[in-house]
């Protein structure tokens, strides 16, 4: 292979691969210059502008998302605070209602007690009054019956006399005293 190359090189002494040809240098320069100027003046500024816009858009989106996150956080905090407040309020109301209920019950119980005592007292005095009325009526009836009976027995009316002397009353008082004593 190397021998071949050497042989070929000897045969083609005019051709040296390391010596550039003038026309090719010219074409190469032109070809590259066109590429370079297109990139430099037109295409890269174009794409850079778009890349910058995209970057801005992405960053804008991220900023927006951040802002929304912060807002959501604050709303959540607010909501939690309100909830806690509401719970507190509810607990307070319940406590108050309990207290009020207890007070009401106590009040009603006291009222009931009072009314009961009133009724009992009224009943007692009524009974006392009735008893007194009954006793006095009974006394009169018994006296009358006794005098009637005695009159009939004696044959004469002792009414006037009895009324004057109050014998019967005295007798009945004695009876009562005896009854009291034996009770």
């Amino acid at each position, binding site marked *: *292979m190397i021998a*071949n*190359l050497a*042989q*070929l*090189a000897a*045969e*083609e002494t005019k*051709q040296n*691969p*390391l*010596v*550039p*040809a003038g*026309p*090719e*240098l010219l*074409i*190469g*320069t*032109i*070809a*590259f210059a*066109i*590429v*370079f100027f*297109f*990139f*430099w003046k037109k*295409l*890269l500024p*174009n*794409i850079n*502008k*778009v*890349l910058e*816009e*995209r970057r801005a*858009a992405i960053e804008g989106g991220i900023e927006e998302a951040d802002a929304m996150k912060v807002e959501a956080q604050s709303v959540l905090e607010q909501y939690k605070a309100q909830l806690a407040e509401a719970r507190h309020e509810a607990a307070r109301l319940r406590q108050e209602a309990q207290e009020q209920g207890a007070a009401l019950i106590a009040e009603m119980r006291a009222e009931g007690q009072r009314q009961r005592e009133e009724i009992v007292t009224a009943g007692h005095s009524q009974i006392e009054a009735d008893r007194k009325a009954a006793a006095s009526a009974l006394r009169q009836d018994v006296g009358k019956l006794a005098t009637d009976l005695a009159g009939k027995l004696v044959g004469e009316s002792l009414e006037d006399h009895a009324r004057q002397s109050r014998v019967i009353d005295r007798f009945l008082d004695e009876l009562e005293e005896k009854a009291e004593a034996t009770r």
Partner: protein
Amino acid sequence: MSDNGCGFPAPGLNSFLFKPLFTVGGFEFNKVMLLALVTTLLIVVFFSAAFGKAKVVPGKLQMVGEAGYDFVRRGIVYETLGKREGEKWVPLMVSLFFFVWLMNVWSVIPLAQFPVSSVIAFPMVLAAIVYITWVALTFKKHGFVGFFKNVTGYDKSLGAVLPLVMVIEFFSNLLVRPFTHAVRLFANMFAGHLMLVMFTVASWYLLNSWLVVGAGVSFVMTIAMILFELFVQAVQAYVFVLLACSYIQGALAEHH
């Protein structure tokens, strides 16, 4: 084709010679020049289509263009020069990358099948552009004395070795560098093309000889070499631009 005894038409420098397609007043226009101009046309047409009416939400073509552009801009220029210093070098480096790459890719395109960059004139033009840019930038940045300090790697702490280092650095930076920059690309493409021609010709040659099995092997090698060349083409374009960037970076660097 030469005959070295066995009749195998070994490919050589003759593979890099083209008869002029036409001649205008003594100017011989050949296939390589045509390919170079088609390279320019393709790049301009493709990127005009991709970036001409660029949108914030890209289409498929724009997406492909952006991927290529971004690869050079971020992957090479920003990496070596930084975003702030690198920005104004992006157009040059992007142009260099796609121009070199496409010139290389012609190597495996049917009908063309010849890498433009295997003709020394084309790498040389590009290397010269980078070289002139680098020299001018170094002068502008550091002044006349600063320029020589920069290219000779002047550093007092080296002491007695300094003169030697300065001579070597001067030689290496100012004289050898543009040569290696151009030849690295040229030689890779040159050798690659030679290999492809070699295996292609051998496939055909062996098919008509008693060693038919050899034709199969040679053909498989041709396919393998095409794939390998595709890789080398991209790598060489990348290396060419990376070196250009590192030269510019050297010019921008402060003295030690």
